[in-house]
């Protein structure tokens, strides 16, 4: 705490000094410049941007209805796009083969055989199942697809014969937004309480700190279990989605509040706050005009690093059978489908969603790291 206060002072002083020297470059611009230097962070940021865009346009990207059961194609390995056919001819537009399924009589395993005569070239902007974008635009145009009765399962199908590729993008809608929404709620709870606690201090601060301590000392798992058990089984899935978000937020606001508080604690003694106080600024004005902007960058950094925790939290809840429920799709749910020995040994393609989870979390971490470094543009 003491350490932070010191840095706060210095930063404040340094900002003043630096601005004297080079007025042309704003702090914000400095941050941006510094951020840009960190290539991994930039890549992470771009990747996330793409992921979120893809999640918004999931219905457009996904060639299939994610809940559609293709009972003839249960647990089918990806049978990707081909440029070269079985006769060795090259096709400019990739195509998929028709597939015939049979059951191995000895092991009851479904086997799939391509039918070389049946080729379904990839088509763009095709009509398919209906979907909505952001719940507003209703359409049935998909980015790509193949003509019926051809089937396009880029990542294969799961044990219920649903298209994993499509499910990944619809799952992203839930999982990525759970992180954002959860963090937003956390921010609201955490920063208000943290700033208030740090600024007001005294008994109020003491009580809040004890409560946070208690919350944080409370083992997470029982809290998860308990809160999730409180969500009635018979709620519709969208309401469960919000409940899960709130559960995740409730469990993480404490840490954020603590960090914000210690920052405010440090800033409270900073020269510019003292100056503001002497010029008869109201508490509200000091908080909103001075403390909030000064802590905001840190809060955003903390928030960025909190999102991966939420995404993983959602997968953990799903694992325990307490998370998002079908027909909603989340990455946690997709991973739960994958946690079988048979998947690891026989059907590894069902694990594809894990790649997206891991990639997203790595990207968030890189981004968070970059932001943290950038938030303090005058550091080494």
């Amino acid at each position: 705490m003491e350490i932070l206060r010191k840095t706060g002072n210095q930063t404040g002083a340094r900002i003043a000094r630096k601005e004297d020297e080079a007025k042309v470059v704003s702090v914000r611009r400095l941050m941006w410049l510094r951020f840009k230097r960190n290539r991994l962070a930039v890549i992470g940021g771009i990747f996330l941007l793409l992921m979120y865009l893809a999640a918004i346009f999931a219905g457009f990207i996904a060639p299939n209805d994610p809940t559609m059961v293709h009972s003839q194609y249960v647990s089918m390995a990806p049978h990707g796009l081909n440029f070269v056919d079985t006769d060795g001819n090259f096709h400019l537009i990739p195509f998929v083969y028709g597939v015939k399924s049979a059951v191995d009589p000895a092991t009851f395993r479904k086997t799939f055989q391509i039918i070389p005569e049946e080729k379904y070239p990839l088509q763009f902007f095709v009509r398919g199942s209906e979907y909505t974008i952001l719940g507003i635009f209703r359409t049935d145009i998909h980015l790509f697809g193949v003509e019926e009765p051809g089937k396009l399962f880029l990542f294969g199908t799961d044990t219920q014969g649903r298209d994993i590729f499509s499910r990944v993008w619809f799952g992203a809608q839930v999982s990525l937004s759970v992180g954002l929404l959860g963090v937003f709620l956390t921010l609201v709870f955490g920063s208000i309480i943290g700033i208030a606690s740090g600024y007001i201090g005294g008994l109020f601060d003491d009580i809040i700190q004890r409560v946070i301590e208690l919350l944080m000392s409370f083992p997470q798992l029982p809290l998860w279990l308990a809160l999730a058990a409180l969500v009635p089984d018979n709620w519709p899935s969208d309401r469960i989605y919000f409940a899960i978000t709130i559960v995740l937020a409730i469990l993480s606001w404490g840490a954020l509040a603590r960090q914000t508080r210690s920052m405010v604690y440090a800033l409270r003694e900073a020269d510019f706050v003292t100056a503001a106080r002497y010029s008869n600024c109201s508490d509200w004005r000091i908080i909103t005009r001075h403390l909030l902007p000064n802590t905001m960058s840190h809060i955003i950094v903390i928030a960025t690093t909190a999102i991966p925790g939420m995404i993983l939290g959602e997968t953990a809840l799903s694992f325990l059978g307490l998370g998002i429920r079908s027909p909603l799709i989340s990455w946690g749910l997709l991973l739960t489908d994958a946690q079988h020995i048979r998947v690891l040994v026989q059907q590894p393609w069902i694990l594809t969603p894990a790649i997206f989870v891991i990639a997203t979390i790595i990207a968030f971490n890189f981004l968070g790291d970059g932001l943290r470094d950038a938030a303090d543009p005058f550091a080494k």
Partner: protein
Amino acid sequence: MMKRLLLIALLVLALSSTVIAQQTYNEAPALAEKVAAGELPPVEERLPPEPLVIEPVEQVGEYGGTWRMLDQNNELGFTLMTTGVEGFLKWNRDASGFRPNVLESWEWNDDATEVTVHFREGIRWSDGEPLTVDDYLFWWNDMVLDETVPLDPASGTVVGGELMTLEKIDDYTLKFTFAAPNPLFLEAHSRGPWNSSQSLVPEHYMRQFHPRYNSEVTDTTELMNRYNTSTRLHYPDMPTIGPWMVTNYVPDQLATFTRNPYYWKVDTEGNQLPYIDNIQVEIASGPVPEQVALKAIAGELDMQVRDVALQDVPLILENAEAGNYRVIMWDRGDFAWPWLMLMYDLADDGLEDLMYTQEFRQALSVAINRDRINEVTALGLATPRQFSMLPQAEEFQSPEGQALYEEWANSYIEYDPEQAASLLDSIGVVDTDGDGFRERPDGTPLELVVTTFPDNPKVDQTLELLQQDWQAVGIKTALNLMTWDEYTTANQAGEVQIFAWPSAAGWGLLSAPTVWAPIEGVQWSMAGMNIGQYYQTGGAEGVPPREGSMLERLQEAYSRAVSATTAEERNAALLAAYRIHIDEGPITIGTIGQHPSPVVVRNNFRNVPETGLVASWDLGYPGTADPEQFFFDQE
């Protein structure tokens, strides 16, 4: 049926007296050593004068080996049913009926109100004390009838509202008297690891924990812990009459068993059973089927009956050679997984009208794409079928029984959405407001809610498909989950419309007849708890079904069947009852059933029968398959 049983009993008696009477008996080497060391009496003295002879499934086995298996936390049902199903009678290995077990023979009076049973003489507890009718009487007099012991009478012991009465004739003869005919008492009292298997307690041992006999004991906790099957394992000193006795129990981790030196059954060559020396049960928590799958393909299981997931069958079969095991497909023994209980006592009168409309029910049934459910949830290995009893049931064994079975199991199961639509059209369930969903005949919206218990992925998957099927014919469908308590309350309030029951049950009059006729006010009662309650209380409580409805007729048909005293009469009455399910059906809707239940068996683990019905504990598998005659082929 009774005649047949008697016949079997006599046959076994005859067999044992002619073939074995002169024989000396063999025993496991380990026991022979103990006898030589003077720690045990010789095998002839440990066995009854006429031990029960078990015909091996394949061949006479050899002694030795440790049977490794895996079981679930806490319940340990598989363990229990391997080592502890020794009741009055025992199911035949193919579950076609019962054979004598602890009881050697029995005689009913003509109106089936009295039965005199003869215990097999000379059965000994695993500590060497003889088993007599006093052991059973202790359970009845000192536990059930004792107010201080929190134990209620078992089913079948209360008839017509009155407790049965027991009369001890001699050490091995007991007379049961009932207030009304109770012809299936012995069979019903011999199901599963409960009933008489649980009621035969060692009196000489239990007395020390009963406040009445031991003034130092203040409460019944110790007594009940030894009585309850789930906690018995904690007490290795508690005598048993099962083939193996527990030696070590580390909760959540391990239970080990060793042979009972006083086991009272022999094979056809006079070898004392069991063949296998020890059982080692690893107790797993968490996703048990995953651990079973991995242990199976690694060849670390000798025989595993339960918790083998159907979805894992391809994985397990592909590794069978490397793991040196085979897979025997037993039957889950379910007539539907799940079955859809339509409720006929609803707070919503309009919906109740629809439920009573046969066309509506038929439309619901034919709108279900059962083949798709089969492909997606069961690898296509189950059987699409209507809600009907299992083909193994005794009443289906006659030609007319088989014909009726075929008709019933296949009624209204052909997937035909167009027929469903026209059926719905014909009763005025049409889409009047153009939202794509049909309204009720009076024009108000129709939405069906299908409820089930949480935590059963297979049922969840089935219901999701069902929802799609019903929506496809224009019936708006919602899925709902309820806990046991919520379900009970909602059912009694008439707020459950359709319930998907996830487990298997027995059949006919044994086990749970209330799944096909409204007779009891319990959660698994067809038509709803209130209607069952009405009949159970003789009209004092509950809600009657509509007058002249099929439910009334079903209940009447059930009453005829249950009071029949001969097997022919009973079977005929049952078939007549099932006929109602066809003619006015479906009354409860089936999905897919008779799921195969894979059993992983090590290649040198022999004498495992090819059939078995696993799901309902009532049937007591693998105990019913006589695990005492399983053996390891040592070559």
